[in-house]
């Protein structure tokens, strides 16, 4: 009797443990998948696009060499598949961008990106449903026309993302500077030098902010005429962002030296 009640409790404990482990596992699964879903989806769509691109060019070459009805039909099929894969890849990319950049940017900053995302999704669905060649040509032209502006929105979002990330670091750095400045008043030796370094920290932070503004101006004021214009502006903005990073590293270096003096006391 005693033995059976013991085994009954053991069974209950085993069931309880199993349910606990399963519950934990099930709780973790969505967390993992949510974080990785957009990354994985994008990488898969990129592979599909590369494969469709290769197949389209092979089919095109085969048609140009043989000029038969059969190769022409294959070319049309491959062209449709390629166009759909391209649209799908861009949709997936914008989804990834919204997820990742959304961690730093406000809704207002993401409006343009979200609009392009909706437009691309509709456009890709239309490509998928189109049967007439004329409609297909119109849709391809629309993507060609819109892509340069789309590119500008992408690079503007990337610029804002880097600025937001660096600004977060600046806020932490300023808090540290403020606290260290109070502590410095207790140090007698090197007081003037440390005070000078604190001024340098502020100056480097201001320089980083100036470069942020310049990077934004580069991206906002660029005139887009063709594909690639936004990329050139992004490269210039990128230089500004690298300069901001350099200033922040220097400011961090000054703070490190000040901390070493504080720690010596």
């Amino acid at each position: 009797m005693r033995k059976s009640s013991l085994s009954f409790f053991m069974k209950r404990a085993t069931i309880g443990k199993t349910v606990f482990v399963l519950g934990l596992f099930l709780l973790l699964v969505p967390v993992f998948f949510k974080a990785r879903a957009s990354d994985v989806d994008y990488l898969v769509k990129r592979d599909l696009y590369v494969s469709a691109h290769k197949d389209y060019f092979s089919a095109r070459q085969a048609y140009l060499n043989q000029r038969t009805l059969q190769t022409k039909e294959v070319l049309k099929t491959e062209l449709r598949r390629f166009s759909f894969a391209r649209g799908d890849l861009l949709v997936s990319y914008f989804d990834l961008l919204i997820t990742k950049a959304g961690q730093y940017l406000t809704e207002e900053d993401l409006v343009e990106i979200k609009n392009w995302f909706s437009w691309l999704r509709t456009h890709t669905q239309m490509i998928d449903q189109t049967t007439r060649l004329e409609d297909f040509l119109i849709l391809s032209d629309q993507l060609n026309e819109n892509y340069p502006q789309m590119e500008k929105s992408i690079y503007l979002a990337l610029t804002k993302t880097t600025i937001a990330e660096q600004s977060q670091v600046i806020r932490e750095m300023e808090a540290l500077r403020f606290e260290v400045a109070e502590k410095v008043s207790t140090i007698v030796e090197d007081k003037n030098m440390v005070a000078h370094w604190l001024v340098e920290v502020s100056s480097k932070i201001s320089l980083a902010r100036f470069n942020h503004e310049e990077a934004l101006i580069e991206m906002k004021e660029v005139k887009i005429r063709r594909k690639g214009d936004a990329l050139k502006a992004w490269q210039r903005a990128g230089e500004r962002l690298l300069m901001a990073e350099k200033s922040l590293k220097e400011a961090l270096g000054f703070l490190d030296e000040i901390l070493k003096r504080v720690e010596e006391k």
Partner: protein
Amino acid sequence: MRDRTPVETDSVQVMENTVFAEKPTKKRFKFKFKKVWIILVLVFLFVFGALLLALLNLNLEKEDVIPEIGLVLTPTLKPTGPDSDENSQFRSLWYSVYNGLKGIDVKQEFLSPPVVELDIDLSPEVL
């Protein structure tokens, strides 16, 4: 003529066979249950191990030297002076800023747009 009357010994044999046949089934069930349990524990450990590694990875690169700074600068891993709570707090804030800055991909390479072919030859002679 073949005798069709049921024989008692046959039915006993059948029963015995049935009883003996059930035992291995139970054993197999237990074995499978243990297997599932082990797999669950392994999956659980793997998931937490991955999470732990991801968290540790954030602090593994502390010993790097900050480049491009004319001043000195080898970040001190431990305070050089008396290890007061206040100093530790400053240093941990400093590392937080340092790791934050180091973790930024200024050129956002992973988020750069994919290179897609836009100029497709759609002329009538190709289509």
